[in-house]
């Protein structure tokens, strides 16, 4: 029998556990992409419903209603109104949750008006007892004209019921649960007569979308039926009131809340976690714990990966047939790829902690807590979310700023987010900190290296705030703003959600950066192992002549090292590096570091991979050697270490501030619709980074 496929759209308010439901239904059979032309994340997964029926589930961005006020929300409406869209659903699953059912049902009633088969999922049933909530499901099903699945995605209860309802979606009623057109009978009758073949609510959405998004081309309907903005807004308000009246009446009989039975500790916890002194103190202690753990816990797996790649390179060199391609593998590809894979443990731990904080509901408290501080710097509490997600990557963080309705606050958030320490900076920080900061403990428990890492994160955050303050004073854009944040209940993080998030983020880091690093390793190895002119070709002869004609006796065993060094200096990469040396020398960098800095303009994490490749080419040894050891062993002509304290600090500061990410510049251009802002960002951030690194090196040396 042929395999059947049902297209399902998963819709719901933010914080209803929609993603948990999606994860439970699809497991790891997920694909993450973007909607065409825009950068809103699109998640599609497959769920097996029966022997011969699958469901393709589309996880749509969280939305509070069909009156979209952001681009994310608009994606939902555009999809539901376009029957020709490839992803147009056959059935809609609206996810709500027991504690905020009243608010969640607003979206549900709007979707029901589109006359599509709709299932209502009420999530977090495990919290009903805690909150003293009881639901009369048969009555709610009757009033809302739908089938309801009462579930707990956290405890994996009721997931089979959702599958069963999707499988039998043809039995669902498509009748709306209320008559919203009664808010202005005359207007809607006129509309109905003019477009008798069109669904009335769809027409209404088309008209009101124009009100919210101004630029949409809805020509025909717009020309004949658009009232003034004020009138339409008034009608929208009337519609919302009408819907809430219906929801109130329904819940009055379908839901009972007995506060005396509630055993929740949320209020007590909130009082402490959002306290004006303890709140910040707790947040700081949590951050401190995270950075300590990142360094301490990832030490051993990192050492293992580093030595494994060193062994692999040495194994390849010895056992593969000698020749150019073997050299490429053992000196270019393996050290280059190893230079990025070594940071997987730190990335995993960072995202593990961030996911746990998000899943537990603590992050929303942080947003609330930080709003007061953010306002002083011209940002909103909502800017905290992009700023925190900036620790992963500035690109989704900048896209996340779309939630900020106020254009000035949004622009400032976009411009300062790249200062936040992203996961691409982590490899650079980690290796330099390990080289210049001793692995010692302060007061017996505080790792100095962990403390330095935390200081760099705080530095990034501090500079972002100061820049925001300056931008707020200089940008002449007049806007009004408000701040509304939803505080979800505290939950024990779900292992499945946390692990899927960690796997996705790590995969994006490894495969996104890994492919570029692999390709760059090949190019860099080639440029480092080939060179123009006679100096490169006759390196062996020149060094031998120098050694034997020297009056100072030289140990012949150093000749191979000197030849490698000489060849590297006269290779293509050596020539490029030497030509930029005058610019970077005042910062304390030699030409090899210069090459790594220049190549990492594409992406910061390339820095370590580049150095790993350059030092690997510059060494003649077949012995196993780790990236860290190679970097630690690099010396100037006078025998002093290249990666000393002043150079290390200068590099750390340079990477903390420099705008070294082509993809971020591209996304800023897309989000601001102008080259002006990414160019300002590039010039200001890189210039500032150069200046700070210069001052730091000159003072410390």
């Amino acid at each position, binding site marked *: 029998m042929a395999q059947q496929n049902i297209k399902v759209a998963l819709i719901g308010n933010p914080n209803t556990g929609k993603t948990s439901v999606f994860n439970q239904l699809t497991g790891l059979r997920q694909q993450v992409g973007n909607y065409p032309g825009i950068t809103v994340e699109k998640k599609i997964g497959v769920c097996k419903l029966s022997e011969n029926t699958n469901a393709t589930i589309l996880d749509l961005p969280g939305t509070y209603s069909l009156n979209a006020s952001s681009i994310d929300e608009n994606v939902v409406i555009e999809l539901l109104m376009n029957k020709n869209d490839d992803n147009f659903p056959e059935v809609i699953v609206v996810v709500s949750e027991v504690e905020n059912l009243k608010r969640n049902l607003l979206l549900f009633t709007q979707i029901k008006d589109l006359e599509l088969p709709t299932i209502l999922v009420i999530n977090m049933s495990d919290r009903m007892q805690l909150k003293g909530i009881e639901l009369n499901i048969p009555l709610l099903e009757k009033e809302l004209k739908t089938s309801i699945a009462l579930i707990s995605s956290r405890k994996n209860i009721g997931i089979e019921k959702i599958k069963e309802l999707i499988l039998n979606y043809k039995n669902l009623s498509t009748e709306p649960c209320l008559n919203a057109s009664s808010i202005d009978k005359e207007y809607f009758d006129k509309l109905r007569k003019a477009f008798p073949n069109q669904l009335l609510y769809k027409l209404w959405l088309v008209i009101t979308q124009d009100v919210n998004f101004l630029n949409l081309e809805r020509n025909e309907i717009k020309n004949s039926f658009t009232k003034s903005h004020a009138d339409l807004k008034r009608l929208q308000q009337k519609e919302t009131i009408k819907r809430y009246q219906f929801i109130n009446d329904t819940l009055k009989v379908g839901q009972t809340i007995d506060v005396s039975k509630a055993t929740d500790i949320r209020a007590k916890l909130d009082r402490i976690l959002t306290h004006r002194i303890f709140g910040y103190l707790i947040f700081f202690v949590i951050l401190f714990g995270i950075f300590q753990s990142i360094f301490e816990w990832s030490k051993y797996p990192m050492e293992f990966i580093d030595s494994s790649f060193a062994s692999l390179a040495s194994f390849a060199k010895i056992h593969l047939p000698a*020749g150019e391609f*073997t050299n490429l593998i053992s000196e270019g590809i393996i050290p280059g790829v190893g230079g990025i894979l070594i940071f997987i443990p730190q990335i995993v731990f960072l995202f593990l902690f961030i996911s746990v904080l998000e899943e537990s509901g603590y992050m929303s408290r942080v947003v609330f807590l930080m709003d007061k501080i953010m306002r002083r710097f011209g940002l909103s509490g909502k800017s905290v979310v992009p700023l925190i997600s900036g620790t992963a990557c500035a690109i989704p963080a900048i896209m996340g700023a779309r939630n900020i309705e106020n254009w000035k606050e949004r622009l400032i958030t976009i411009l300062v987010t790249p200062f936040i320490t992203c996961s691409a900076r982590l490899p650079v920080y980690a290796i330099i900190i390990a080289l210049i900061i001793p692995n010692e403990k302060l007061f017996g428990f505080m790792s100095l290296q962990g403390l330095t890492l935390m200081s760099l994160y705080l530095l990034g955050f501090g500079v972002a705030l100061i820049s925001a303050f300056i931008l707020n004073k200089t940008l002449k854009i007049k806007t009004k703003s408000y701040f509304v944040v939803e505080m979800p209940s505290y939950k024990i993080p779900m292992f499945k959600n946390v692990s899927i998030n960690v796997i996705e983020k790590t995969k994006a880091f490894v495969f996104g950066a890994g492919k*570029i690093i692999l390709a*760059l390793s*090949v*190019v860099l190895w080639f440029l480092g192992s080939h060179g123009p002119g006679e100096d490169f070709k006759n390196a062996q002869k020149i060094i031998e002549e120098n050694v034997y004609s020297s009056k100072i006796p030289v140990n012949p065993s150093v000749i191979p090292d000197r030849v490698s060094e000489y060849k590297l200096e006269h290779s293509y990469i050596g020539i490029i590096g030497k030509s930029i040396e005058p610019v970077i020398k005042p910062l304390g960098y030699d030409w090899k570091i210069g090459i790594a800095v220049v190549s990492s303009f594409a992406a910061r994490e390339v820095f370590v991979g580049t150095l790993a490749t350059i030092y690997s080419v510059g060494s003649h040894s077949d012995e196993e050697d780790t990236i860290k050891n190679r970097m630690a062993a690099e010396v100037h002509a006078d025998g002093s270490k290249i990666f000393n304290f002043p150079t290390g600090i200068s590099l750390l500061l340079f990477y903390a501030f420099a705008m070294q990410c082509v993809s971020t510049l591209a996304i800023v251009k897309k989000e601001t619709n102008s080259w002006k802002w990414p160019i300002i960002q590039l010039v200001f951030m890189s210039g500032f980074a150069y200046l700070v690194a210069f001052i730091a090196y000159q003072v410390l040396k």
Partner: protein
Amino acid sequence: MNIQEILTYLALALAIVFLYRKFFGKKKSKKIVAMMVVGVVNQFFCKFEK
């Protein structure tokens, strides 16, 4: 020119094409692909003649 050299030049050509496509977009990459092919073939014959 031995097999190791051919593989090396092939890897280099692939790496350059990949990076070009990554940073300059797929549309503009036809020209660079053609140039790379010419380069590799040219390199191959130069070495082969020697």
